[in-house]
């Protein structure tokens, strides 16, 4: 049960790290989403930055202290925020880009509301099962593995993009007689 709870908390941490870091790299899409949801323009970028930092903080909390109430409440707080955004978009009937996990072209809606249930379930399960802090060495291994997995998954996308770009460059050189 503890293993399952650790897998769940690590998975959620991975998703939140990915989402938070993507947002930190470029706040503009998230700021655009927030403005569309009604956040005033003058504070939209700071709020977007705060949300990104919150995601990274909760992710770090889930890795280093999954037993902490703050980590678990953090999941629920973020899930509530996403669900609220989904409700607002659905209520208005507008096509508002999600930008939840960096640049994906999904729109906000009832999906975020439905997703609240597994988020809540994960927080509750982790709270019930993981009662004590983990050994620091185990946490370090977990964090290291998580970082490597996230970077590894992104590297696959990079390799595909590189292969495609190389093909386009080679073709442009041959077909249009461009020289380097």
């Amino acid at each position, binding site marked *: 049960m503890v293993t399952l709870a650790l897998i769940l908390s690590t998975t959620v941490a991975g998703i939140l*790290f*990915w989402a938070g*870091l*993507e947002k*930190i*790299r*470029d706040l503009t899409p998230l700021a655009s989403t927030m403005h569309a949801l009604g956040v005033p323009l003058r504070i939209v970028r700071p709020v977007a930055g705060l949300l990104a930092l919150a995601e990274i903080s909760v992710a770090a909390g889930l890795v280093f202290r999954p037993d902490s109430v703050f980590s678990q409440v953090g999941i629920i707080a973020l899930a509530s925020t996403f669900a609220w955004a989904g409700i607002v978009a659905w209520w208005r009937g507008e096509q508002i880009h999600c930008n939840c996990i*960096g640049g994906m072209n999904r729109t906000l809606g009832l999906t975020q509301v439905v997703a609240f249930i597994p988020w809540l379930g994960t927080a509750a399960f982790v709270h019930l099962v993981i009662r004590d802090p983990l050994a*620091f*060495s185990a946490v*370090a*291994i977990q*964090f*290291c*593995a*998580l*970082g*490597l997995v*996230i*970077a590894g998954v*992104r*590297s696959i*996308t*990079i390799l595909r*993009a*590189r*292969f*495609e*770009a*190389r*093909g*386009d460059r*080679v*073709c*442009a*050189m*041959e*077909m*249009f007689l461009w020289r380097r």
Partner: protein
Amino acid sequence: MATLALIAVGLLSLLTFLLFGALLEMYRDIRQLRDAAGILDRPLVVDITSIEGKSPSEYGLPGTLDSAPSAILLFLSERCLTCRVIAASLGEPLPSTLWVVAEARDSQLADNFVKVTNLISHERVLLDIGGQIANRMGLNTSPVGFRIQNGRFASATTVPSTRYLHSILPAPLSLKVRAHPSKPLELSGSRSSYSRQSSVAHPGEAP
């Protein structure tokens, strides 16, 4: 010490993830610039007046192509880098409407081409040693994709990328035979019956 090293590796991995994201954005920017410059996936039309309407088997190609309702015959050359990129991208399963002819000056160069590109071995992937088929067709450009319709050469363009190749591959269509005969539709004054019956628009009519 080892614990701190693991934490450092984790932090560096997350930093690498961030940098990969920036690199991905750059690749997308380059693609956008190529698209704006009009050099992305811009095929050149190949004049096939001398072979248009003729059957592929006349030029040494498999007779199966003579009965293909719709297919793409892709010519690649071992001398062309774009061809190598396209050949390397072909994998299992090979699209059912794609035929590939890899032309090489001799068998050693053909083997080298296959090895370098990891060209898949398939009944629809042919090696044209010495360019016999290409010479008969008068082809001296590659990569070129010939569109075959009803077993005859219809048109041809250059194939600038794998992406373009997949965009021109014809999707095989066939009739779907129902297992059980459907009940005859009853005409009534209800809107739903008329909307089901009029779902297929005839040419010239509004749907």
